[in-house]
């Protein structure tokens, strides 16, 4: 019987296999950031161990970094101490680090792909659940805990128990106003936050093949919000074109050998998935969340659901709790929900195409009075590209704030936070209670919906914007 893409990549990395034991898997790329690594480095020191492969390890500063005044010392002493700890650890153990102020600094899941380090058929880990992003290249990529970070630093391997395989096939063409973000939010609403538990999901079908690399990263990024171990998309010409010429992509004969291997990385026709989901792309619409987990979402054209409409008792209770926290009423049209803040950024939607998409909606328009809009590029390279294209001016002329690169308001570890009761439309990945700041209320949206919402002050898609609000420029 044939094998799936995920099984092929797994099999290619087995260092040791024994009955009744997890497989020992080799890790091709280990990404680090300041939050989940300090205790791992401490562990190495306590045991007198080294980093086995510094040449397969890369660190960046992203979670704590401020997005304003980056030339000044970091105001929060605890954040500063954590960043300084990473700098000391990387210096001591010989790990390459891109610090705040470095041109390659940025959100770890933006930096890996843009450097060309994320490649098809590799295993990629990071102490961060959104490592699933890298699966867009046909890599087997997953988030790990700090104990596993220490394990990979010391051994470049991980003992892992087997996974199940799920195919999510999206056929047809996405409607014009529907983006990858809408698609993945709809998928999570359909299969639930636990629907992917134990699975590696492979996204396939004509609608997936038609997506750009950056859109594919948005999809794979949120696999974890469906509970999946990882998300993957088979590499194709789109993947190869994205990688060609990047700083760490192979060159010359190495490139040819790599592409030859990468072309074998597809699910065999006779392979069988443990579970399959089919989605008709044409039926999708702009999608937003109304609740406090990423599965609590609905088309923008819908209304806030009535908790009583849920069959399952725990879903019903969860919806009740969510509406109370979000201060929403059943039957309230989602398009009428007013927001205070709009956040464009994160490892989900902080890439150049996301900024272009938001800018195309904002161009010639103004952010509504009383609405604060933050635009935070995913990396310094993304920021430079945006400036090159004049996108920063589109944002600032519309009244949005153009910030420096980092994780920012996705999780509010730096000063970019919501106040209690403040409501956001956010292109990030999690609408958990308090995620963006204590008492903050989050609606997850696409960059287009974020921009349209900023203009109208209420959850909106670009098609809701009155033509009269457009000023020719």
């Amino acid at each position, binding site marked *: 019987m044939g094998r799936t893409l995920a099984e092929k990549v797994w099999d290619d990395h087995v*260092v040791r296999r024994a009955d*009744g034991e*997890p497989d*020992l898997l*080799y890790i*091709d*790329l280990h990404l680090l950031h300041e*939050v*989940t690594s300090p*205790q791992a480095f401490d*562990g190495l020191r306590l*045991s007198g*161990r080294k980093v086995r492969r*510094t*040449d*397969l390890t890369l660190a960046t500063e992203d*979670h704590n970094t401020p997005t304003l005044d980056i030339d000044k010392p970091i105001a*929060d002493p*605890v954040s500063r101490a954590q960043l300084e700890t990473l700098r000391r650890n990387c210096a001591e153990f010989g790990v*390459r680090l891109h610090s705040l102020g470095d041109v390659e600094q940025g959100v770890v899941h933006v930096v890996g792909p843009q450097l060309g*380090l*994320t490649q098809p058929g*590799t295993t990629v880990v990071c*102490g*961060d659940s959104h490592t699933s992003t890298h699966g867009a290249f046909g890599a087997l990529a997953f*988030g*790990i*805990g*700090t*104990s*596993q970070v*220490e*394990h990979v630093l*010391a*051994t*470049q*391997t991980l*003992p892992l128990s087997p996974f199940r395989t799920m195919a999510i096939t999206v056929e047809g063409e996405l409607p014009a106003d529907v983006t990858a973000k809408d698609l993945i939010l709809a998928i999570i609403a359909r299969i639930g*936050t636990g629907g992917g*538990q134990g699975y590696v999901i492979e996204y396939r079908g004509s609608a997936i093949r038609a997506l750009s690399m950056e859109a594919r990263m948005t999809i794979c990024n949120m696999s974890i*919000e469906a*509970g999946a*171990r990882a998300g993957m998309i088979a590499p194709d010409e789109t993947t190869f074109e994205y990688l060609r010429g990047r700083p760490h992509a192979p060159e010359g004969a*190495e*490139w040819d*050998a*790599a592409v030859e*291997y990468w072309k074998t990385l597809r699910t065999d026709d006779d392979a069988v998935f443990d579970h399959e989901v089919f989605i008709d792309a044409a039926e999708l619409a702009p999608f937003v969340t109304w609740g406090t987990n990423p*599965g609590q979402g609905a088309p923008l054209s819908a209304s806030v659901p009535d908790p009583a409409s849920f069959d399952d008792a*725990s879903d019903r*209770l*969860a919806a009740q709790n969510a509406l109370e926290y979000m201060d929403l009423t059943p039957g309230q049209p989602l398009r009428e929900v007013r927001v205070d803040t709009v956040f464009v950024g994160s490892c989900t939607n902080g890439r150049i195409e996301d900024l272009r998409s938001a800018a195309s909606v904002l161009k010639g328009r103004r952010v509504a009075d009383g609405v604060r809009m933050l635009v935070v590029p995913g990396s310094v390279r993304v920021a430079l590209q945006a400036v090159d294209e004049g996108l920063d001016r589109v944002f600032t002329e519309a009244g949005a704030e153009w910030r420096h690169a980092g994780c920012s308001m996705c*999780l*509010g*570890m730096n000063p970019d936070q919501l106040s209690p009761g403040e409501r956001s439309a956010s292109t990030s990945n*999690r609408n*958990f*209670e*308090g*995620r963006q700041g204590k008492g903050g209320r989050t609606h997850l949206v696409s960059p287009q919906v974020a921009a349209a919402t900023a203009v109208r002050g209420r959850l909106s898609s670009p098609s809701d914007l009155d033509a009269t609000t457009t000023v020719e420029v």
Partner: protein
Amino acid sequence: MEAFTTHTGRAVPLRRSNVDTDQIIPAHWLKKVTRTGFEDGLFEAWRKDPEFVLNQPERQGATVLVAGPDFGTGSSREHAVWALQNYGFKAVISSRFADIFRGNSLKNGLLTVILPQETVDGLWELTESEPDARFTVDLVERQVRAVAADGTELVADFELDDNARTRLLQGLDDISLTLREEELIAAYEATRASFKPRTLTV
């Protein structure tokens, strides 16, 4: 890692599904660079509510958390496991755990036990009506036992693969075990394709 064989203690019913790791330990606690000192951050937002179950006098000193489905979703932060342990929890029971949280818990000796939701419902009812009821989580027998005041016992077997169980029972250090495979790791490295990415030239 601390070994886990069997533990007996009182329980805390947490009747919520999808308890994500941001609820277990909010992000601002993640700036600490140690594995200890997270107890005050555990369920920080919910603990501000005097009605929250952890604030009830009869739950003080309880060590077994009985949670709703999909416990530990979201962020991979191992701090969530440390916070539960720092607070005093030895075991968490749920009908479904998020994968990364579960992996993290077993690596730290916090036993996560999967039981059917009907069984969890029964455990909730017991501890809610009898907060003093003793819950035993027995890894040797792979069994949860809870005894009511009238002597009736609720017994439920759980599954945990032999490998994970052995590691927990003996408190084995994963890294030491893997380092015994040095020759195999080196042999694998010798076969890796030269086009594989490198972050630096050494």
